[in-house]
């Protein structure tokens, strides 16, 4: 953790005086209590105004038929109707759930596998490794943009670069992005292409594995694969866990590329209707903001549940060497 190290050139530390009681034993001699709230006030206002109140508002709206056109005072309470509609009467909602789950279930593991694989290749220090690392990381910086989504969609068009490549082998490609069977796969590839960010985190994790462990394993006669399985993977499991949680949560929120591919519709035939895109369409195209709010709450609860599942299963496979990393 490069940033947590103390800056070195910080002048005299006056260690002679540091034996003075550090904690003020509850006394507030320096007005810290007030100062704390002064410094915290922008954050507190943000928490209330931008996060908490909107959340409560959206919970309330999810039980109403609110559209942006009627004033808030005239909204009608509809009980659980929005939730009922979502689960029983809106097939495209289920498409969105299905598309999002498929996307995350495929793209995240493949992306992490690619990240780990390349990290293992890069893990030996030699000249030039820094350049490779940076270049692999570059897509993670660019990949979330509209510009790259545009490029990606065109690359998998009928006349795109991918089909030109297939043509070299005499294969006639499809217009992938217009094919309901394949459109989502092209989006997955775009996500996987950005494996650089988790790769960098894996590399940092690999550096932390003590080389004595490999030596010991080697003395015990462990082969390369066995070392990977019994030393690298367990030692890396906290980092794998970290990447898995983050990438899954990010994966659920994919929006930009799906929007660009389908021009905001989720097509062809709902095949790229990511959850957030469905939410956007309901709220801002159809203006059914009550319905969209219900969707947002289900999304929030689903993400909270998945995170909980990760953390509660994590203890069975995540190995912490000294209590914490």
């Amino acid at each position: 953790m490069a940033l947590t190290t103390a800056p070195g050139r910080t002048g005299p530390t006056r260690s002679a005086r540091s034996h003075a009681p550090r904690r003020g034993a509850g006394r507030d001699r320096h007005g810290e209590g007030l100062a704390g709230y002064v410094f915290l006030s922008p954050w507190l206002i943000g928490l209330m105004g931008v996060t908490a109140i909107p959340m409560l508002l959206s919970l309330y709206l999810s039980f109403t038929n609110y559209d942006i056109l009627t004033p808030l005072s005239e909204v009608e309470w509809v009980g659980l109707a929005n939730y009922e509609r979502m689960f029983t009467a809106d097939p495209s909602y289920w498409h969105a759930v299905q598309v999002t789950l498929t996307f995350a279930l495929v793209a995240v593991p493949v992306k992490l596998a690619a990240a780990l694989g390349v990290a293992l290749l890069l893990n030996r220090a030699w000249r030039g490794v820094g350049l490779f690392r940076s270049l692999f990381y570059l897509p993670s910086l660019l990949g979330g943009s509209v510009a790259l989504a545009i490029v990606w969609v065109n690359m998998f068009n009928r006349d795109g670069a991918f089909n030109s490549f297939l043509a070299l082998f005499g294969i006639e490609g499809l217009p992938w992005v217009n094919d309901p069977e394949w459109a989502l796969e092209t989006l997955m590839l775009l996500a996987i292409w950005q494996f650089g960010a988790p790769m960098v985190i894996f590399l940092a994790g690999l550096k932390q594995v003590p080389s004595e462990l490999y030596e010991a394993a080697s003395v015990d006669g462990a082969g390369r694969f066995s070392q990977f399985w019994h030393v690298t993977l367990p030692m890396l499991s906290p980092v794998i866990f970290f990447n898995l949680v983050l990438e899954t949560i990010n994966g659920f929120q994919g929006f930009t590329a799906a929007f660009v591919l389908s021009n905001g519709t989720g097509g062809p035939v709902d095949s790229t209707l990511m959850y957030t895109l469905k939410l956007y369409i309901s709220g801002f195209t159809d203006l059914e903001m009550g319905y969209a709010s219900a969707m947002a709450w289900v999304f929030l609860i689903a993400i909270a549940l998945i995170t909980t599942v990760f953390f509660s299963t994590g203890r069975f496979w995540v190995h912490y060497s000294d209590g914490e990393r």
Partner: protein
Amino acid sequence: MVAATSTAPRQGARRPGGRQALRLVLLVVILAVVLYPLLWMLGTSVKSQQEIVNNIGLLPQRFTPGNYTEGWSNFDLSFGRFFLNSAMVSLLTVLGNAVSCLLAAYAFARLRFRLRGIWFSVMIGTLLLPGHVLIVPQYILFRSLGLVGGDWPYLPLLIPQFLATEAFFVFLMVQFMRGIPRELDEAAKIDGANPYGIFRHVILPLSRPALVTTAIFSFIWTWNDFFRQLVFLSSLEDYTVPVALTLFIDSASQSAVGPMFAMSVLSLLPVFLFFLAFQRMLVEGINTSGLKG
């Protein structure tokens, strides 16, 4: 495995040459695949319409920079306007995040006050809160305040950034400040400094690295951000670059592919320059943060 081999420091260390070469070849191949889309984008942006369809090579046979001028003025307003809008939103976001997150982080990292533990847990809780969940009610609230599509429609994009709502940066700075030796605070206290003085003279100057990391990431993320800008910006003259780029998709006629690619390249240029200037920092910054990318 025979015990005799175990005297070598590590397996494979006896023939490093062959293995290393294989590694290198593999890496170069993967890198070529990874970089191909970027090179293809660059190549396509200077190809004529004819060549975009027919020439499958990376390089154009005839260099066509006209795509750039054509794309620049493809809509009623020039792309210069959109770039200015994007730059303004991104730079103000940088300012807002740097200031507000630093203040909050100082409170969390250094000051003792009532309910600090609870507020800190709440802050950590908001780390994983998806922004999409809040977009509908935020839109409604900002609209009811007359800020959506108002005189200056960027307020809904910027207000949250000045209120330290990017918990990730708060967390990053808290982590950083915990590394600053407490003895410095104590010394300043003995010299008569109050919490404000300590912030001004000790924490602020020493937090520069964390501020720089925050600035770089908030610039890049805001520059690339699409969702919020799409929701809150509704008239052409207010559009930022990502929103303007989607106009090309609407006019998806084949003739606009070259100009569309040209503008896509230009839109990635600031991020790319940041990458060149700060690549070390970015790669190491992601280590401490790990978020997004």
